[in-house]
């Protein structure tokens, strides 16, 4: 069996050759206008923007820093520029139901014009109406009406008085009313005189007075009606006068807005209201501010009754070109839906349609609204409010209190405005999948998902494209241009960021940060071009800033507080490798893994798992080991083994199966009693067939072990076993590669456990021959024999006592 060859140092990292670039610095490169590596997402965005159907709103998912915002904005603005600006919206008073303000849809720019026109009309009316009521015409006609009423009264009483007089009867005012009395020479007959009259005369007088009284009653009954008639005529007169003042002003406006029937309706309503409320205009002189205990009780500036003729323009597209693209940074419920504000007046909160304020949906109506999904979800009820507007296709302004039916006091209920907007939500993937899973509305409303990648495939032309991306980013941030070497180093780092020599990171944010930091170091060094060294320094400095824990850890290994051997050979002990992620820094370090075996019932005891310091994936790896062992060595015998495995000196939870191959090596070493070279460290997971499988963080793991070895002095024996499948992920540090080139350090790609154990023990693993037996002396033979012994022992101990021997 040929041994595993170490990897050629040339394949431990993908190097970008600066000589492939024809430019000197990135200043010569054109801006990159295309979006690289996001074909799927951009197609989805284009589709989502293009499709005009209900529910085709977009959810842009992907990690932050991939330039989602900029890309979405760019596409939206391109599309919006091709569209017409949407209509203006105004809220105006509803004169019939003031608590339900009316919404007016107006062509762009007309909202403000209508507001100004109404203000002008109002100013004119403030002069014209009082003037009309001071006119001679009005006074004369009013006096005439009053006179007519007086005459009518007088005539009625006068006639009655005359009728009475014919019979010598007087109409007399009594304390509580009126009465008729027979008179003689202007004086009322006394009862005695009346008695003296002949009986017939008395009867006649009584009868006459009775009829007169009836007439009097009738007259008095009619008085209020006459008064009402007169008042009605006065009102009609006032309406005529007001109409004369307001009519031509409104008529002028009607001509201007003839094409807008809604406005014409509104103007009619205004005219009617002005006529009904002409009194409001008669006393508009600005008097002293009314206040009580220092609190103003007259509403700011204008009499409340005249506010009802204002026009509240909530959306003005007079200066808008194309459809609006709105990004709402703080999508609280009321910032989205709009709100009705209140004014405190004498301790009461008052409102009217002029206090309706628009929300982001109003501003974006007819265009596009971009929101951060996380922010929307964090704001109470914003998500519910947004969904309701989108599914109802209208914006209904309600306070949270109203929406939750917490408040029953009457507030405004503005007429909803039809909504036609495309919403683009930006969020992490997890949010998309959670919403998709848990919110049935979400699927209906956000039918287009645009999934952003964080990395892209490396193609032959990629380095140049990437160099142009670097040039664009540097220019955008006013950074120094980069020379070829610096560009190459940045691109290498882009590959390292995704830990893959065949891919490049397209998290623009990370690249931009690297460029900014490199720019800083270049400027600090007094250069006007960023060089490879500056980029390297930026990378190193960033690691340096956050590697306090790593340093402590390596220190403790060096000082033998944490026991790690990097030389010699030990049975049942192997160097595993683990990765720690702390903030932005991930680093690897070796851990000692030990295995002990004895007679038992076939369980592989993972101490880590027993004390609940291991995650489920780790446990899974250990159980696979047992599966492998049993199947390969004890297929037809009981596995009479009890093995215990432990990560020495770990005090926290262990997760991941990348140590499962190391555990298996330790176990095989313990069973075969073959010492393992401590100069090697191992990573890789293993399956039940003994194949070594890929793991994550391979670069950090190799570097972690390398750092320990180097601090103790490289012997030339040291190296790391990695799964062969991870070879393409290698983007190792320059110093590691240099050591490999000098033969002081080695990286071995391993595909099977047999390859690994051979490397670690220096003893052949051995394959079964034609008889199904492993070669003598091979690791596998030694393991199989050991297990056979254990099985036999187990059988002996398990037999009934009488079979063992006579008592």
């Amino acid at each position: 069996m040929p041994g595993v060859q170490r990897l050629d140092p040339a394949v431990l990292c993908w190097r970008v050759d600066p000589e492939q670039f024809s430019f000197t610095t990135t200043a010569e490169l054109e801006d990159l206008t295309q979006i690289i590596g996001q074909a799927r997402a951009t197609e989805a965005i284009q589709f989502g923007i293009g499709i005009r159907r209900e529910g085709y709103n977009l959810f842009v998912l992907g990690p932050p820093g991939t330039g989602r915002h900029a890309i979405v904005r760019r596409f939206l603005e391109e599309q919006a520029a091709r569209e017409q600006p949407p209509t203006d919206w105004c809220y105006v008073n509803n004169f019939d139901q003031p608590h339900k303000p009316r919404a007016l849809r107006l062509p762009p720019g007309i909202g403000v014009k209508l507001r100004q026109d109404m203000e002008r009309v109002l100013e004119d009316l403030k002069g014209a109406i009082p003037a009309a009521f001071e006119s001679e015409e009005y006074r004369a006609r009013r006096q005439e009406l009053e006179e007519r009423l007086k005459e009518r009264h007088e005539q009625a009483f006068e006639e009655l008085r005359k009728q009475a007089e014919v019979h010598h009867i007087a109409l007399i005012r009594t304390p509580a009313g009126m009465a008729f009395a027979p008179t003689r020479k202007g004086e009322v007959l006394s009862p005695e005189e009346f008695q003296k009259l002949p009986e017939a005369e008395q009867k006649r007088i009584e009868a006459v007075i009775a009829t007169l009284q009836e007439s009097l009653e009738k007259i008095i009954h009619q008085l209020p009606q006459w008064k009402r008639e007169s008042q009605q005529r006065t009102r009609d007169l006032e309406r005529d006068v007001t109409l004369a003042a307001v009519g031509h002003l409104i008529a002028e406006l009607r001509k201007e807005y003839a094409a807008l029937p809604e406005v014409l309706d509104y103007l009619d309503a205004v005219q009617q209201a002005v006529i009904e409320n002409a009194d409001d205009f008669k006393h508009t002189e600005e008097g002293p501010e009314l206040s009580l205990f220092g609190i103003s009780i007259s509403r700011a500036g204008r009499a409340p009754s005249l506010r009802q003729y204002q026009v509240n323009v909530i959306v003005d597209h007079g200066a808008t070109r194309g459809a609006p693209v709105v990004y709402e940074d703080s999508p609280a419920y009321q910032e989205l839906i709009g709100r009705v504000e209140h004014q405190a007046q004498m301790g009461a909160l008052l409102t009217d349609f002029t206090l309706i304020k628009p929300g982001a949906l109003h501003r974006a109506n007819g265009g596009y609204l971009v929101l951060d999904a996380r922010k929307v979800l964090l704001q109470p009820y914003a998500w519910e409010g947004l969904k309701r507007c989108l599914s109802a296709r209208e914006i209904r302004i309600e306070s949270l209190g109203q929406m939750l039916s917490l408040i029953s006091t009457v507030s405004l209920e503005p007429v909803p405005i039809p909504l036609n907007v495309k919403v683009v939500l930006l969020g992490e993937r997890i949010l998309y999948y959670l919403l998709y899973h848990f919110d049935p509305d979400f699927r209906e409303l956000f039918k287009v998902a645009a999934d952003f990648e964080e990395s892209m495939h490396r193609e032959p032309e990629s380095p140049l494209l990437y160099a142009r991306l670097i040039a664009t980013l540097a220019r955008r941030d006013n950074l120094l241009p980069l020379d070829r070497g610096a560009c190459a180093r940045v691109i290498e780092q882009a590959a390292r960021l995704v830990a893959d020599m065949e891919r490049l990171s397209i998290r623009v944010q990370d690249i931009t940060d690297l460029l900014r930091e490199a720019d800083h170091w270049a400027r600090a060094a007094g250069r006007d071009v960023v060089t490879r060294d500056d980029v390297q320094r930026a990378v190193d400095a960033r690691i340096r800033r956050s590697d306090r824990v790593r340093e402590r850890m390596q220190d403790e290994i060096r000082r033998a507080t944490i026991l790690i051997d990097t030389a010699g050979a030990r049975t049942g002990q192997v160097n595993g490798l683990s990765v720690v992620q702390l903030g932005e820094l991930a680093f690897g370090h070796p851990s000692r893994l030990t295995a002990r075996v004895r007679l038992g019932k076939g369980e592989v005891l993972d101490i880590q798992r027993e004390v609940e310091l291991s995650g489920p994936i780790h446990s899974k790896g250990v159980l696979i080991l047992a599966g492998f062992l049993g199947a390969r060595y004890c297929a037809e015998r009981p596995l009479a083994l009890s093995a215990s495995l432990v990560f020495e000196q770990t005090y926290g939870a262990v997760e991941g199966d990348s140590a499962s191959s190391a555990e298996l090596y330790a176990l095989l070493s313990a069973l075969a009693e073959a010492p393992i070279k401590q100069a090697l460290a191992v990573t890789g997971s293993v399956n039940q067939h003994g194949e070594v499988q890929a793991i994550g963080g391979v670069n950090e793991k190799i570097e972690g072990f390398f750092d320990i070895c180097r601090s103790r002095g490289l012997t030339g024996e040291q190296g790391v076993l990695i799964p062969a499948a991870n070879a393409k992920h290698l983007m190792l540090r320059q110093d590691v590669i240099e050591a490999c080139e000098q033969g002081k350090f080695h990286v071995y790609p391993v595909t099977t456990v047999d390859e690994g154990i051979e490397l670690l023990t220096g003893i052949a693993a051995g394959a079964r021959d034609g008889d199904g037996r492993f070669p003598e002396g091979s690791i596998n033979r030694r393991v199989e024999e050991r297990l056979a012994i254990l099985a036999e022992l187990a059988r002996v101990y398990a037999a009934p006592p009488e079979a063992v021997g006579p008592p």
Partner: protein
Amino acid sequence: MNGHVHIRRILVALDASGASQAALEAAAQLAEQMEAELLGLFVEDINLLRLAGLPFAREVGFPSARTRRLESEDMERALRAQAARAQQALAQAAERVRVRWSFRVARGMVAAELLAAAESADLVALGMTGMQVSPRLRLGATAQAVVSGATGAVLVVSQGVCLRSPVVALYDGSPASVQALELAARLLPDEEQRISVLVVADDPQQARRLEAEAAARLKKNGVQARFRLLAEADGASLRRAIQSETPGTLVLAAGMTALRDETIQELLEAGDCAVLLVRQEGAKKTKSRGKRSRPQGSSD
């Protein structure tokens, strides 16, 4: 021709009407100015009492239009209550301006009782109308009788009016108009005094003479006045001239040739100012009237 008028006793005709209340206020104002005494008189209308005694007497309520039986006792009670209210109002008004006052109740024909009482007073103040039914202003029968029958000065006030500037007086040189001028000059406190004098004459020459005369008389009282000369004055043009001055208080002299009774009545019925009608002393018409008055409480 030294017609110095002294007003020491002012008779106020009191009833339950608003005009009577205005007359009381004006009288109190005048009493304060002249340091005069207020004599309140409430006349229980004999006509009402007789009416109430009639077997078929009915009252139609106003404005309720409900017909009620009238009883003598009820009427007596109602009149007594009105009298009490009148006395209270008088007491309040008089005490406010700090003048002596007395009050009595008489029973009889209202105009006759007032005229009889007026003989012992220098001025009668009364409302233009009694209680009103019709909204139009009309000089009431009682007021009419008093205006034409009184021997002294008469002050007629309608509801809502009081004595105020500008005081407009008519002057034609007659003794009564001299008295009117003198009274006009002293009618209001000095700080409020603004007087317009309309000089009525047959020709411009006479007018200028009369103006000089009037100016001299007023100067004696330390009053400056505005003069306006009226050459040919018939009733209508006189009325227009007066109204164009927008008088607050109008002082007229009875017996001026240019001033006929209809004109006076028209001026009164305009109702927008208090009208003081002055009669030349000595021109008293003497009339004998039966007195059925009984004294009531009086007080300072």
